[in-house]
């Protein structure tokens, strides 16, 4: 089943740690936002495969933006 990972806060996308097609384990860091000069890691909620990446490094995001979808 597809699942989407949303940004938890507004900020800038600092690093994306995965590519489309990667297999990830639960708790793996998918991407990191920068907010208040703090790194805010976003983790895989479960094991799965990265289906799509909808954010880009250096871009600004709002809270609740869809960032990554997993299958």
């Amino acid at each position: 089943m597809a699942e989407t990972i949303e940004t938890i806060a507004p900020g800038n996308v600092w690093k994306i740690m995965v590519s489309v097609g990667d297999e990830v384990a639960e708790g793996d860091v998918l991407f990191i936002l920068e907010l208040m000069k703090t790194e805010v890691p976003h983790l895989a909620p479960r094991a799965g495969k990265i289906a799509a990446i909808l954010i880009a490094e250096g871009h600004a995001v709002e809270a609740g933006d869809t960032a990554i979808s997993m299958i």
Partner: protein
Amino acid sequence: MISVVKPGLQTSVQDFPGRIGHMSLGFPPSGPFDSWSFRLANLLVGNPVTAAGLECQFLGPTLRFETATIFSICGADMTAKLDGEPVPRWRSLDAKAGQILELGAARTGARTYVAVAGGLDVPVFLGARATFQKAGAGGFAGRALHAGDQLSCLPALPDARAGRQVRDEALPPLDGRHQWKIDVVAGPHDDWLAPEAIEMFLASPWKLSGKSDRTGFRLEGPAFTFASQAYDKPIENGAEPSNIIDFGYPIGGINLAGQTPIILVSDALTMGGFICPFTVPSASFWRLAQSRPGDTYEFNLLGVGEAQAARRLIDSVCTAESIV
């Protein structure tokens, strides 16, 4: 006693008005960034406005009340839930021992305040309980909260009770806006800018950078031009036109680091060698506190007397008369 289950993004103990009178030692005031919401949170639970509470930034904490208490939530909407049930902001609420308060991501605004009856009992350092994280001083162990931390509370005052709310006319107008009017007063170094740079500054939208925190708010916008005194100055002032001999920075100063304006906010550095052409008065700090990266500011020039009047207006609603 309150246990921290999840700490949130950066949750800290703050008190009002913070650590006042120690800038000569390098200590900024710290304290709640949006002191309007913070003071109302305290008043709701029967505390003096000065009592220590929590400031939650962008993503709130999950807390367990180990003992029954009265609490309130004010400021940004973090969709608070008590044992899974949504609870309103701007009201005093009952918590039973063992209940869990969960705050999520700020839907609008950026900072949310949690007050508990009696206030949080952390050591007083230089006259305040406020956290100054950069120095590892004040608050709870000088830092943002971690999971597993346990916060003690002082005894509640006798008239603390649930069911109180803030009068509508006393609420800060937090409506999810992304464009903000921020007041400034001129100086201390407005005369270092070219007259057209002052016009440019007041006429331009300024975007809040993600590289902003309780130390400084970085702004993105057009470039500044300078008056002759920014160039014709003794060498000890420094090489950049915005360099000046080190001086004590005003809180709220719009510090011009090269071409980047940085508003010096609650946990700001207290001295340095860049000019501050304008200063944001305290009455506009709640707007800064509730804005989000990417939001834009337009600056509105006030006289010092008007800025003081704006402060008195906010002070006048941060009183027990605003609670019903």
